[in-house]
């Protein structure tokens, strides 16, 4: 064996081919089957896609590095489940390009934060976390309320997401900027289109409390309020997994 190596280390090209070969095996065995084995991701036929406003909110969540301190992955451990809710299913991040499972909980897990607090709580908390949780070490995000949300290119965002596999329709793409506005302006005529395209369960509210202005705060709160709400893990998907022969 060492004799073989003695010859191998005299030739640079065979040597680098050997490195590439040896280093490829593990990744190939672990990653490739995840795309082909059907059971890897559960079925959730009723799962809906993110609205344009939620996509924008998700992008703000990434931009501000929220994932550095908050996970979105409830593990199958008793204390995780009792603290944060039903353990996370693979299907729940099916439309997450990229996933935001996170690696650190400087703050609590957010996988099921949606609906747990009111919009107003989120707005106050993001404006100054210490106004509602005195001991919090979270940064203030007060400028979100002052920053107008850029919606003009949301159609392009949805189109790119469709290219990587999220089932957005042409109708959704064409109306993306209008829907973003409509979702945060419940009394406006354009809000009906959001419900029509994304379903009756969609939150249509003035998330930041000001229906006339569309701010980054609207988008981020809309996203936080949908976390864990795209499908109900307790009901259809788990039941289906059991039915499968």
């Amino acid at each position: 064996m060492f004799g073989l190596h003695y010859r191998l280390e005299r030739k640079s090209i065979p040597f680098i081919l050997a490195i590439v070969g040896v280093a490829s095996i593990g990744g190939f065995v672990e990653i490739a089957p995840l795309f082909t084995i059907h059971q890897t991701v559960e079925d959730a036929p009723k799962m809906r896609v993110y609205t344009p406003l939620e996509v924008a909110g998700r992008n703000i969540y990434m931009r501000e590095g929220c994932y550095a301190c908050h996970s979105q992955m409830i593990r199958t451990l008793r204390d995780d489940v009792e603290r944060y809710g039903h353990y996370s299913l693979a299907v729940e991040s099916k439309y997450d390009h990229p996933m935001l499972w996170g690696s650190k909980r400087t703050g609590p897990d957010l996988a099921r934060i949606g609906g747990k607090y009111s919009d107003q709580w989120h707005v106050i908390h993001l404006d100054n976390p210490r106004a509602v949780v005195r001991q919090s070490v979270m940064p203030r995000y007060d400028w979100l309320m002052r920053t107008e949300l850029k919606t003009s290119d949301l159609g392009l965002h949805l189109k790119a997401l469709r290219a990587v596999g999220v089932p957005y329709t042409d109708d959704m793409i064409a109306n993306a900027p209008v829907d973003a506005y409509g979702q945060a302006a419940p009394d406006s005529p354009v809000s009906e289109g959001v419900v029509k395209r994304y379903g009756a369960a969609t939150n249509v509210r003035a998330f930041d409390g000001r229906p006339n202005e569309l701010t980054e705060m609207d988008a981020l709160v809309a996203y936080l309020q949908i976390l864990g709400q795209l499908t109900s893990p307790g009901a259809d998907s788990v039941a289906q997994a059991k039915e499968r022969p």
Partner: protein
Amino acid sequence: MIAQLTSSERHTALAILLLLALCGLTMAGVGRDDLFGVHGALVLVAAVGGIFAVGANFYAPEPSQHRLEHYYDDPSKIGIVLSLVWVVFGLFIGDWVAWLLVNPDLTFDAGWSSFGRLRPVHTTSVIFGFGGNALIATSFYVMQRTSRARLPDQLSPLFVLFGYNLFCVLAVTGYMLGITQSREYAEPEWYADIWLTIVWIAYLVLYLRTLARRKEPHIYVSNWYYLAFILVVAMLHIVNNLAVPVSFGHAKSYSLFSGVQDAMTEWWYGHNAVAFFLTSGFLGMMYYYLPKRAGRPVFSYRLSIISFWGITFFYIWVGSHHLHYTALPQWVQTLGMTFSLMLLVPSWASASNALLTLNGAWHKVRDDATLRFMMVAAVFYGLTTFEGSFMAIRPVNSLSHFTDWTIGHVHAGALGWVAMITFGSIYASVPWLWKVKQMYSAKLVEAHFWLALAGTVVYVFAMWNSGIVQGLMWRTYNESGTLAYSFVDSLVAMHPYYIARAVGGFLFLAGAVIGCWNVWMTTRWAARVQAPEWQSESAVAAAPALQPAE
């Protein structure tokens, strides 16, 4: 630097820079409604700066033919200086964000300065800015000595070095502006990733061209590790960053993968960035500088073969240990855990090979802080790899994951292993590169050593404590069977440890600043003692010729 290039190399340099300026201009034009345009302008400014630098020496006389008789060390010198600049910047940001967790209001009322944006600035600056530049600088040095061959040309090493730093600048400024893929340790967006791919291919080609010119029949073990670092990082980088941009005028892109497949790809990348960037590359450094400085041959050739292939094969499997108890299928988690445990064998083989090499030279370890940096690095390498394998065991991970224990583990590796071996190698190579007998001040090297060691120990102990306390509080139940502590209770309990951590980080930063000053004084001292005779024929003859390294 430019005067050392031949006139045809100056022409090529100018052509490359003009092309880069054109790219920058195009980016600035098509991306004017997006942050993409800001980065276009940045690329343009960098290219124009380069054009001025080349232009100023464009008609300088041709470099002497004597240069071909000596190694080409300018890129190594520049690389070392750049890595020192990055380390001070990166450690400063790191310590700042550490204090932000003590008092979250120690910042400005602006997006760029919030914790979430600065944290990747810290990680990228220290891993890629400091570590990457040190790896490139030392690899140029080592590949020439161990091959007894000069670099094949003078332009491509500069292209690799400056191209790589442009990538780092795009990355770090991007986070502050709000440009990120949010993939941990792979945050830069698609265009920066494409640029890095180009630079990286140039790096590989340069390495292979130098090896092709070698006068030693065997490729020395350091080069195996540097090659594994270059090749596997390329593979990881390309696959992990596959994405569809929103448009060619947008900085934003969407990852090709989603959910569970994306998580596995990201941690396949993430853990192997640790493996092939932070381990493989620095082992290459260790296998050259430690035996050289100790004046001892490597303890065992066979042990180095076993550990090299062991690390290359086992490491790539272990990424899934970041995803225990998640929605990732259990069989992948189990594979990750199993291979993490097996990985301990080649890791400890490397660490013991390094420490046994010091047999017969322990008196030097006692007297010479530079060698002691390297010895302590090997010890921390052994400790950290043991800890890593331990934390990959599923039940242990159920406690440690998501807590500060992970942060402590990472810093035991990053400060104790990566930074220590790098500082040791820098202190060894600065006098060799600048042609002086020793560093400006051995006492300051000693001071740096103790500050670095104290900082690392304080940091790691603080995070072990906070991590384990946090993990235990999260899973403690009352007698009535309900959770005993709220999340906020655990946060409050962290406060003293966060202060200790920030103090430890400050000590480490102080050491690095002293190191920079020492290197700066050494180069000034070198310029003073050598400038007059350096131009004379005798001095050129005395300069290091193409000699074997071992």
